[in-house]
């Protein structure tokens, strides 16, 4: 589910060219430098950043954190239908249902989530932003051709939006087959409409901004205006959206695993798969479900906190 996480604070209008804060102007700071300064002062940002950093470190340094290989089911013989070995000297979190070391699975699972999450978001961003920018750019420029391009692209986006995004992702993944790539493409595709709308809105709104009219009057080529001015101004909200989407992408990867889509090996370290496998072994091993679930939630939380803080820091109207 691409949950566009709404701000809890006063609203920002996406797409409006972000005016500079008085304070920043006085100090001679650019938009980004000002945002960064505000970011550093925000406790939410720090919380989020710490969690994200932890997640990335664990994902990257996985081989250093555990000596076992992920998905290695060499202890499958120790697992029976009535007992799954718990924490012990060799396995400090115990085994999982398929005979892998639970700690190893968790740690390498971070890697999978990061990989899947980042790639799918980047994919969605690339395709969605391009579509949206095209639609918005042409739409802003106007004329018969421009409106047609805008309308066609938006109709396509509408078709994608006709179905709730999880189900859209599910259909695409089911079509592409049982693999990790299918999951990534599916989740990326489900994010395209969000980015498309964002960019289009931003471009359209900016089309009316004074500086664009001025640049146009000055004779600057349209493509130059778009590339050098309009697009960079849309960066802020886009990055915020990408960060927030990364959070939901991580959750969606888990959801798709829950529905049986994704790579075929049951022992592959991925938090969503671990949750699925843990369901009917609650009585003897609740930790099999609780640990991955909490991991998913905390990681998504980290990205969300950071994205929230980023959004607030880019919006000069927030003064609290």
């Amino acid at each position, binding site marked *: 589910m691409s949950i566009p996480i709404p701000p809890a604070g006063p609203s920002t209008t996406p797409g409006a060219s972000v005016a500079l804060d008085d304070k920043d102007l006085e100090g001679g700071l650019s938009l980004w430098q000002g945002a960064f300064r505000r970011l550093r002062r925000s406790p939410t940002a720090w919380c989020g950043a710490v969690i994200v950093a932890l997640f990335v470190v664990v994902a990257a340094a996985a081989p250093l954190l555990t000596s076992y290989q992920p998905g290695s*089911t060499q202890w499958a*013989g120790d697992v029976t*239908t009535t007992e799954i070995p718990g924490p012990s000297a060799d396995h400090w979190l115990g085994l999982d249902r398929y005979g892998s070391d639970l700690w190893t699975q968790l740690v390498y699972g971070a890697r999978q989530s990061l990989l899947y999450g980042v790639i799918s978001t980047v994919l969605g961003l690339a395709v969605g932003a391009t579509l949206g920018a095209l639609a918005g750019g042409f739409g802003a420029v106007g004329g018969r051709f421009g409106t047609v391009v805008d309308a066609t692209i938006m109709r396509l986006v509408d078709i994608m939006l006709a179905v709730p995004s999880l189900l859209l992702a599910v259909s695409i993944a089911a079509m592409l087959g049982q693999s990790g790539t299918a999951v990534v493409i599916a989740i990326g595709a489900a994010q395209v409409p969000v980015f498309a709308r964002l960019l289009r809105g931003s471009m359209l709104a900016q089309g009316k901004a004074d500086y664009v009219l001025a640049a146009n009057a000055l004779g600057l080529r349209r493509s130059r205006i778009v590339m050098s001015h309009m697009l960079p101004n849309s960066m802020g909200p886009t990055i915020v959206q990408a960060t927030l989407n990364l959070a939901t992408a991580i959750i969606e990867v888990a959801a798709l695993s829950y529905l*049986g889509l994704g790579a075929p090996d049951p022992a592959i370290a991925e938090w969503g798969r671990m949750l699925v496998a843990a369901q*009917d072994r609650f009585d003897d091993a609740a930790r099999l479900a609780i640990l991955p679930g909490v991991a998913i939630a905390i990681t998504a939380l980290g990205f969300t906190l950071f994205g929230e803080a980023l959004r607030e820091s880019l919006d000069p109207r927030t003064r609290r």
Partner: protein
Amino acid sequence: MATAGVRSFRACVAGIAAGSLVLVGCADSERGEGDDRNTFVFAGSEAPKTLDPFYASDGETFRVTRQLYEGLVGTNPGEVTPAPLLAESWEQSEDGLSYEFELKSGVTFHDGTPFDAEAVCANFDRWYNTPENQQTDDKAYYYGKLFRGFATGPTADAAIYGGCTADAETTATVTLTSPFAGFIAALSLPAFSMQSPTALEEYQDDAADNVLTTDYSTQHPTGTGPFQFGAWDQGSGEVRLERYDDYWGDVAQVDEAIIVQIESPRGRADALRNGEIDGFDLVGPADVAPLQDDGYQIENRDPFNILYLGFNQAQEPFGDIRVRQAIAHAIDKEAVIAASMPEGTLPADQFVPELVMGYADDVTQYEYDPELAEQLLAEAGATGATITFNYPTNISRPYMPQPEDTFNAIRSQLEAVGLVVEPVSNEWNDYIPQVQATEDHGIHLLGWTGDYDDTDNFLGVFFGQRSQEFGFDDPALFEEIAAPRSLPSPEEQEPLYQQVNRDVMDLLPGVPIASPVPSLAFAPEVDGYQTSPVQDEVWNNVTVGE
């Protein structure tokens, strides 16, 4: 100082909390009370497809229709051997082409019409005259398979049904055009239940576009069984059956039987613990011990199924018998069973379960011997070979309750002898085509639940002809399996089938793993449930409480 807002918020919270307590109280109070009606609530895993068993082949449909209908032949309680039911006795002619049935007298269908020889012939003729659009295997599967053909359509020439005559009110003779040793045993299948011709005439439309949703199939099933139809709520899948007071045998002890569907084994166990059901089928292996510890009853059926690891000999290196033998020796069946199947499951050593006629005591055994396995692999030049291992996900079959766990256990054993395993999983509806209709699979897990006591029901299905599932062509074996079919009686067939089992285990087209013990669970106050390996389980003697 609490503002008005905060105060009303607190009031809200208090109100919700109070309301919840009331709900919880009400939910609880229903469970303790006894109801006026004595009911038996049973949970299956899926909703029945139809209530006309002639067009069905799935266990959940049969679970319900076994209460509503009976056939000429039944089974001995708890066994697979045929026993008289609506037919008190029968006589088979020397050449096996004619069977004379003496029927029970005084039996009526639920709609009051009499069960007699005319009704029997009406049923046999109806089956033979199935319209072409229902002759496919997803509808009239059993008739097509066992009687080989229908009156019309491409199979008309192969049909073995000769005809039926009502000699007297309680005597009917059925003739065949070719001997069929399994005829009597086949008549114990629910698909061949006796249905009321009057009701069929009035409500059923055999030529309908969707015969599963006709009036008869959903609202007016009419048989002679101890329960009659009450209601079928399509929204929840719940079927309600009422006691049939004019039943010829032991009248049902409970007033009402309710069948609900709960898809997950865990969900069924929870519902039992909750008191919302009295019993359920297909207990998950991990739930058996906890339920027993908590005082619930676990009943096991004698296994009548087989789980095997099949080889695709069309793919290297499985064409080499040494590789197949090596894999057979690499598998520790006890460990696989411990990891994924209910307690009490025994390992299998051939492709039919022990109860089936034709089971041979002296087939070649393949003991768990990893060293021998490695040696054989080396001889075949397949040490460290990469093999594809296909298995299904998100499905639970009676012969394979937890495929992922079974796969995992076997995989680790194969890896322990140096093989490299490449897993390929599919959802069930994709898995079947993948392993049965393409050459693109290596070793795979599959199995079979027997329908009735006939080796051909197992071996014929697996190895009766060349198949893409096993990828080999052995005309001598196919002949050997086909030969007994034309013999008139099971006694003559038995030695031949035993030989087939021995030969199959030498050729080793696959490794039989186990016959999992399917179990049922019941509340402590339930009594009188008779299990049957072929699920011929009628609930007229079940009591709940007291």
